[in-house]
């Protein structure tokens, strides 16, 4: 049984070194820092979309992004130039999100879906209306797809969000989450299966 709490523990090792700058430091004091800030801010849209899918609301997403940049700018010296800045920022974003979840003491959701065939959704859509499956997929409302993703248990959802929406590779996701690449692959596998189950439920609800 996999809990979000597991990944919270695992994350501890992967946290970027947040050695903070003195509070009086300002971007204008350091051209390097000013340049770093501009490069980091170029990833704001990507971070916002990840934050939105993790948190589920535009307001929480914006707060997550703001807090992420606050921490990133304070610990900018721990970023190694030439490494993947988007992944470094996503790691901080995820830490902020987990801290927030911990503060609100959300109970970690347990996986409740059964393992299914890869073609679960395809098979579910086959019987329903006599239409080709792809046509049924086209008719699924955007809202239903977003809700289905939100139904995926958090520990699996975050991997799906990073890889399928954030465009991070398996290895980058492993670095961000602080887990082995095999763990990313198995969570991704189960997260996608869970998403298909949630989509099948919604497709059934819309058809009836």
């Amino acid at each position, binding site marked *: 049984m996999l809990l979000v709490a597991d990944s919270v523990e695992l994350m501890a090792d992967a946290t970027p070194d947040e050695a903070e700058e003195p509070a009086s430091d300002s971007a204008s004091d350091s051209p390097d820092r000013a340049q770093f800030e501009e490069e980091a801010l170029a990833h704001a849209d990507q971070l916002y979309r990840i934050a939105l899918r993790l948190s589920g609301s535009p307001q929480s997403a914006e707060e997550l992004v703001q807090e992420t940049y606050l921490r990133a700018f304070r610990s900018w010296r721990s970023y190694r130039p030439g490494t993947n800045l988007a992944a470094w920022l996503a790691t901080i974003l995820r830490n902020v999100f987990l801290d927030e979840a911990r503060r609100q003491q959300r109970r970690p959701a347990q996986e409740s879906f059964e393992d299914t065939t890869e073609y679960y959704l395809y098979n579910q859509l086959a019987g329903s209306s006599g239409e080709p499956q792809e046509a049924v997929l086209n008719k699924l409302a955007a809202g239903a*797809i977003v809700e289905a993703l939100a139904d995926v248990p958090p520990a699996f959802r975050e991997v799906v969000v990073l890889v399928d929406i954030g465009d991070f590779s398996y290895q980058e996701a492993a670095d961000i989450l602080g887990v082995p690449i095999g763990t990313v692959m198995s969570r991704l596998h189960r997260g996608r299966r869970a998403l298909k189950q949630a989509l099948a439920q919604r497709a059934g609800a819309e058809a009836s």
Partner: protein
Amino acid sequence: MTMGVDPCVGVESKLQPYLDRQLTPGEVSWIERHLGECAYCRERYHFEAKLRDTVKTVCCGDPVPDGLVDRVRLHCRGHRSE
């Protein structure tokens, strides 16, 4: 390269890593050869690819709020002068 006794089962198990471009060149050419020959797998492959694409399009389609970067700058500046 072989993918077990039933090639369709092999394709099913490798389809997600194939879509993720995580397979070796040998596995890729094995899968693509099979997809060229097998309508059953091809139809399901198209569905899985379409599903992936649809989820991504929908979930990346949210507008990023106007002025987000400006508010981030303001937020960070406010904390810096504390």
